[in-house]
């Protein structure tokens, strides 16, 4: 047995134990990407660095054996900074988007590429489910959204953007045409009641997600009908009243209670709302100082003062979103905020308003000409399709399928399991810190039946090489070249199909990034 100290705690571990094993066995967290139990551990990623306080040296804990008198720090500033640097360097050489540009541009963070793929595969119901995970009012937005997603669509570099907004509308229209409409399964009833003042896009969206979380919702509006600006303001694009009515009807059917023609007075608010509800959401649209006085909350320059990210106002239990906080041009932003507020309220009702999970997204610049052809490998040729029946009527099923197939699948196939992304988020790295050099050109290899290889997402850990060698693949994978141009490739320019005859699944599973992934992608968390 060897005695070592890790972060001040003395441990006795067997000889031949690595520092990482010793630390992990005692509950210390050590990040790692290139290390996998049962495989040769040749340190490459270097994010498992720890420091020996005695020598002041950093070393990769995955391969360093314990030795007597070691005094290890896993939290030293040097350690954290070096891990961060390693991640930042890796990211500077990583060409790929975690999330597709369209999804990043969507204020509601709708999983557009996945919707597209489901539509392309004919699974319209599942496509709507995906849409409704993020957008409560897809039918309405299908008519009026200015579609910021389409402006950043990588397909514009080929011909024209994918008709995302129409596709989203298509999923909702398809649902509207069905005998029974889709409603997301609700969480168990919480018994909590939330009052929402205002039935515009923010209020409606907020209600939808509160209901999904198992809360009761009552929506108040001064007008005769629900819809707020969607109904009573001039819109840039035409929104058929029937569509508005239909989608509000869905929210009502989902369980929302509407109290219309209810102008809120200070007295009513203090006596009928504050005491009788567990939380209040102000989604009234533009507010003036008199209204602020009614609700007893502070205003900022632009509207109701809220904490960024949580939408809490200055008054406990009162939240606000949409144009009441700041005038918003796009309804989709209000819809997005309504959802975010619902999640914040949900946390409040459960006792903790949790901070949003650290989020990281890798993205890279414009596609170079050769990259465009790489992307076209998995999408159909052909220019943007316009609905034969007219913009307002929207796509037929055939049209929708054809249009959805134009999607370039810019998003990563391993967005949830990618360790590079997880640690980049955890260590809050600056992904552009080392972006001074020319970036490499992205490639996608599709020859394998089930697996896709994207070399420019590879961190050169060599796990796949170790697997194909160990399992005696006839061709297998190998390291090619050295230095900055080191690459993992297939000997004699053979194909991935020949390289991975029996180890494909194991390699995909071992690959810490999206370099090796299944064509169908992974379930997103």
């Amino acid at each position, binding site marked *: 047995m060897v005695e070592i100290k890790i972060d001040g705690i003395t441990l006795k571990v067997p000889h031949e134990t690595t520092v990482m094993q010793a630390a992990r066995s005692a509950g210390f967290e050590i990040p790692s990407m290139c290390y996998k139990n049962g495989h040769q551990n040749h340190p490459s990623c270097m994010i498992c660095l720890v420091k020996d306080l005695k020598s002041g040296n950093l070393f990769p804990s995955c391969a360093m054996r314990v030795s007597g008198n070691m005094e290890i720090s896993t939290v030293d500033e040097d350690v954290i900074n070096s891990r961060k*640097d390693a991640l930042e360097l890796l990211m500077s050489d990583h060409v790929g988007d975690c999330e597709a540009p369209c999804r990043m541009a969507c204020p509601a963070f709708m999983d557009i590429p996945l919707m597209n793929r489901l539509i392309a595969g004919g699974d319209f119901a599942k496509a709507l489910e995906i849409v409704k995970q993020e957008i409560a009012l897809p039918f309405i937005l299908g008519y009026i959204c200015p579609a910021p997603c389409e402006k950043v669509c990588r397909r514009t570099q080929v011909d024209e953007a994918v008709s995302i907004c129409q596709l989203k509308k298509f999923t909702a229209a398809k649902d509207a045409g069905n005998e029974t409409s889709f409603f997301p399964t609700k969480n168990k009833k919480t018994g909590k009641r939330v009052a929402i003042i205002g039935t515009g896009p923010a209020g409606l969206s907020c209600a939808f997600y509160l209901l999904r979380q198992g809360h009761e919702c009552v929506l108040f509006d001064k007008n005769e009908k629900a819809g707020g600006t969607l109904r009573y303001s001039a819109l840039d694009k035409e929104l058929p009243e029937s569509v508005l009515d239909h989608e509000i009807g869905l929210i009502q059917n989902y369980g929302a209670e509407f109290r219309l023609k209810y102008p809120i007075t200070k007295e009513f608010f203090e006596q009928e709302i504050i005491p009788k509800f567990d939380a209040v959401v102000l989604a009234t649209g533009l507010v003036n100082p008199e209204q602020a006085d009614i609700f007893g909350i502070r205003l900022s320059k632009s509207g109701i003062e809220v904490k960024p990210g949580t939408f809490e106002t200055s008054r406990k239990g009162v939240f606000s979103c949409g144009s009441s906080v700041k005038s918003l041009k796009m309804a989709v932003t209000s819809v997005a905020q309504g959802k975010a507020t619902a999640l914040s309220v949900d946390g409040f009702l459960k006792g903790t308003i949790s901070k949003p999970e650290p989020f990281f997204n890798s993205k890279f610049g414009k596609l170079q000409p050769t990259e465009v052809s790489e992307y076209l490998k998995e999408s159909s040729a052909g220019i943007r399709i316009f609905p034969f029946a007219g913009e307002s009527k929207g796509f037929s099923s055939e049209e929708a399928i054809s249009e959805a197939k134009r999607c370039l699948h810019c998003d990563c196939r391993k967005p949830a399991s990618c360790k590079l992304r997880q640690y980049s988020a955890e260590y809050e790295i600056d992904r552009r810190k080392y972006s001074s050099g020319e970036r490499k050109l992205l490639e996608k290899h599709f020859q394998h039946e089930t697996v896709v290889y994207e070399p420019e997402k590879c961190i050169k850990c060599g796990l796949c090489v170790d697997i194909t060698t160990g399992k005696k693949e006839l061709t297998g994978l190998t390291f090619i070249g050295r*230095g900055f141009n*080191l690459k993992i490739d297939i000997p004699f320019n053979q194909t991935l199909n020949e390289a991975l005859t029996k180890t494909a699944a194991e390699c995909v599973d071992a690959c810490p990034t999206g370099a090796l992934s299944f064509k169908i992608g992974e379930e997103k968390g």
Partner: protein
Amino acid sequence: MDNEIIKTVDEIIAEYGSANDAAIPILQAIQGKFNYLPEVALKHLAETTGISPAAIYGISTFYSQFRHQPIGKHLIKVCVGTACHVKGAVQVYDAFKRELKIGESEDTDTDRLFTIEKVACLGCCTIAPVVQIDGVTYGHLTTDKAGETIRDFLLNQDSVPSVNNEFILSDSASQGEIRLGLGSCCVASGSAEVKLALEKSIKKSKINVSVKHVGCVGICNQVPMLEVHKPGESPSFYTKIKAEEVGEVIRKHFQPSNPVYRFRNNLYNFLENYVIDGIPKSLRRYSSEKRDTPVSEFLDGQLNIATEYRGFLKPTDLAEYKNYGGFSALQQCLSGKSQQEIIGQVIQSGLRGRGGAGFPTGIKWQRVKDSVSDEKFVICNGDEGDPGAFMDRMLLESYPFRVIEGLIIAAFAVGATKGIFYIRAEYPLAVKRIREAIKICEDASLLGENILGSDFSFNVRLFEGAGAFVCGEETALIASVEGKRGLPQLRPPYPSEKGLWDKPTLINNTETLATIPWIIRKGGEAFGKIGTDNSKGTKVFALAGKINRGGLIEVPMGITIRKIIEDIGGGIPDGKKFKAVQIGGPSGGCIPALMADTPIDFGSLAEVGAMMGSGGLIVLDETDCMVDIARYFLSFTQDQSCGRCTFCRIGTRRMLDILNKICSGKGKIEDLESLEKLAISVNKGSMCGLGKTAPNPVLSTLKYFRHEYEAHINGHCPTGKCKDLVSYEITNDCIGCTKCAQRCPSGAIALNPYELHVVEMDKCIKCDICRQICPVDAVILGQAKC
């Protein structure tokens, strides 16, 4: 064709076997046959041996020696080592490409006559810039000589003299001895031609004089050098001698013994003297007795231990080596000294590894000796990859027996039975000499079973490195011997515990081993008396760059930089100012002129941010750009990194990116901070020595020459070395001779005789020919308009 290839591959496999560790020698043999690695050959190799396609491809793409595409009939290697770099190697490379009309992304001309490639270092630093076309080396090149060089090569390609058929003219009644150095630098400077002329001349004049081919004479910048030793006369040195001058020298010193010949020779002498008047002017003759001559100054202050008997040992003459005490150390060891006594001597000597890091040699030996194992190995590390270093090459070429003796003693002391010489393939002469010497030793019972009648048996073989700087790192070297990609391993375990084939292995640098016989003969104490407290003994340096007398020197530790440069090296040529010295190659740093009194030892060099490294010493003058130097080394390391760990693979590249940005005038002041921070990160986070020391050239220049970095950021390269930041201007001194206009390869100077010439900057490719060729120095560098 394919069948022929397959047949050849089968023959090669039959010779080398089909084990995994035969892969590198097999690939070398295949390339030796076809000049590249044909895919059919590799596929066939995979099919017929146990070596997997993945392993073959992994190896063949790791080592830069291997090519996957056929090349032209002749191969032009442009050396871009440090000394060549500071003397314009990149411009020379561009000039050759222009001359051969080879496109930007191509390496072979349309006739497939020439393929051009950059090579890390040919080790001929004293005659930089150097270009090697097939076997012929051309030194002191300039951009305007590219065409001339190619024409010369094509004209003389069939009559290249060979150094292989060494000749000896000896006679019992010899009138004296002529010594001629035949190290790589000497040959590159024309030694082989001198040798031929000498041969002819002696034959013709019928004199009895023995000619001896010695190893590297050290004074590489003065070669070819002839030494004339005559009984009763002090030796004379003739430096930079040309073939046509040889006859004159012979006649001056020697008379034929037969009177008739003497008469004829006198007549010749008379006639020729009549015309030439004494020794031709181009000949530089110095007597060894005269002080203050370049030769004596160069040799003064040196202390020869690893290079003992420099200049008069014939490299592969065993009898002579023995006459000078060779193998007596081994004899002592085998007849009575215990292993521990030997190691004790080495520990007492204070010898530290000469490969760079300076680990105490005796302690390393002790560890290997103390490791319990049925089998142990010793390896001589001759994979000298530092651009600008050629100590090991010279030691292996000139004193093969000494290194072998050191290795045998080491093997005996640690209990090893097998040894390996790992020598980089870029050193063909070293490989050849060691091979020969091993054979001779085997025949003389110095290697093999029961050495010199003792119980000790030891066998040694030679392994040629295939072109990877990182293989100088001991664990990477081992991987390479095992037939793998040269990846360093995390230490511990050290090779002394788990080395080649997981057996205890002692790896010593060539120079370290070369000092061992001396230490054993004279005792550790004697060695320990030389040098400083933390660095004992002597160190061999390759002195090159902007220095009057470059060459190979062996000096006591603790000598100051100033003494080396001013006394031994004779200062900076052309009256330029000494600016800095780069020590330790890609792992070392730049020490400014201000700190020239720094003593050279492990401790003080580390203190000032440099490193002993293996012993490359490149002198820089006021025309050298320090940012460019840093960039040069980073471009080397990022290419030579094994690519395994993040900091080295990407970190060094990002450092290079920032340096490129600065050199092109696009840098911002905050880039300096990021560069420094990144450099520190790469140093802390890299796994092996290559990555850990790669930032040194950047950190040391940032420390001592920050103002130059700042100047670049302000759009100005103070020395005019950074192409993007300079423009060419012609002053009123121009005499309108049109020389520049005639030679300008891009037509940027209009041909207007007797008029002031003008450079059109939008056409100018900044090849620098005009500036070099102008007879009145009217072409000057200005600041580019960004």
